[in-house]
């Protein structure tokens, strides 16, 4: 059994276990008080979303992994200073947003640099013998959607990702990215409109 499959099979990673757990904010407070198991649960809930947010934004898997580690390590360092002032996901994605902005500033890059060798659909299920046409169509749709997401302007893409990966509301997106709610709404509306337009034939 590989470590990945072991991680997936771990109780902390299963949806049932997640729903049985207390809310994120309580877990973070418990972690700050010294409960390492609380961190495991918290991490299992948000690892995928944060990673995909970073991956889509910086476009490079190696850089995304590095930023991902930095963000979680910042969270570990700041655990004793954590106070419940907002939803935990807002707090976490604020850390991610800030770290990403630092990364862009350091690179002096106007936008993300995409790694052409990195296949975003590598983990997408391969077509099987059953219903091959439908799966091929799904893969085409997925490829098209990811291309469209990649082509979005960075601010719109970030808003879309925060709404999808972090499941943040417009207020929370505005809080995490440091803009007004109206700005966040406008960005998300434009992003969705572009995605819908690009997916018109496939939807």
């Amino acid at each position: 059994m590989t470590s990945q499959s072991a991680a997936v099979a771990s109780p902390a990673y299963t949806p049932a276990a997640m729903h049985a757990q207390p809310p994120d904010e309580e877990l973070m407070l418990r972690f700050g008080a010294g409960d390492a198991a609380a961190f495991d649960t918290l991490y299992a809930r948000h690892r995928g979303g944060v990673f995909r947010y970073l991956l889509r934004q910086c476009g490079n898997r190696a850089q995304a992994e590095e930023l991902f580690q930095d963000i979680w390590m910042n969270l570990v360092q700041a655990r004793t200073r954590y106070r419940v002032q907002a939803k935990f996901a807002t707090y976490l994605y604020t850390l991610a947003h800030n770290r990403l902005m630092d990364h862009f500033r350091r690179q002096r890059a106007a936008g993300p640099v995409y790694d052409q060798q990195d296949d975003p659909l590598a983990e997408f299920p391969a077509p099987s013998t059953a219903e091959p046409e439908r799966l091929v169509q799904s893969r085409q749709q997925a490829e098209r959607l990811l291309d469209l997401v990649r082509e979005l302007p960075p601010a719109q893409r970030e808003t879309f990702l925060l709404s999808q990966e972090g499941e943040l509301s417009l207020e929370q997106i505005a809080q995490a990215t440091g803009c007004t709610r109206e700005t966040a709404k406008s960005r998300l509306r434009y992003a969705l409109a572009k995605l819908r337009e690009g997916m018109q034939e496939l939807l």
Partner: protein
Amino acid sequence: MSVRDDRELDLPPSDLAKLERLYRDTAREEPPPAVDEAIRAAARRAVHARPSLARPALSSSWRLPLSIAAVLVLSVTLTLMLSDRGAHLPATREAAAPAPRAQPPATGRVGRPRPEPAVTPPPPRTPLSEPTSAVVPPKLAESTAQEVEQMTPPGAPAERNVPPVQQAAATAPRPSTARTLSSEDSAPQPSAQAEQTPASNLSRTTSGREAAEARTAAVNPEAETNAMPGAQVEPRLQAESRADESAGAPAQSKQRGALPPRASATAAGATALPSASPGAPWEASAEAWLKHVDELRGAGRLAEARESFAAFRLRYPEYRLPAGYVTP
């Protein structure tokens, strides 16, 4: 997304739901298990490191003796430095130690009447003719003379740097010995002790001061060389460029094996806080800290600026940098 948010987006709910479902079915990337394990291990270490830090460790038994030893070393060093400096700057010592002024005049002048003190105005200050060693305690003057003798090339006349005026002043009697305390504190004044100081001592003291200045000039360039930041910045930049190169090559990152690239560094960072001292004044607020980083960067201390900024991020991870701020 709340229902209210969905309504405000001006998008048919069915299309929105399809887009969301399609995206969630598509986006399945996850961090590698090695990264997962490294982060969770670092979190466990950080949690378990707290009690051990609070508990008095073996190092605490060394704390007191080490502190005492450090204080002793510092005291001795300071004392030696001050005495050495006092030997080369006798005018400074004069204000601090006025006792030797009360010594009687030299042989052959005992019976000469002395003018009334504090009545005669102080004579005009002539730095060249002022016997700076006149008020130095005898031991200090001797040690200074010995030092200068060691620094002076053999065979060189001791009086070669003394102008004729000073030599005359050393041999001729001075008209006034009156000095007030305030005038002594402000600047060295000629005194009766100058009369009893041999001319050779005067010249040695003068050349000793020059030697001290020469030594200072010789030391300063070295200090400036040590303060150059390039020596520290260069390796870090090279290391970062190497890191960037490795980050740009996914194949390399896959070859890193079970331990992710930053796992060890970040794990170490979990227990060891950055180098900034906990009580530094700029840590009081995020703005002050950023200003401090800017100052470091402005001073060319790029490596320190980066370290300070990294520490700033750890302390204030939520702080939003001002627009246009460029990280060091």
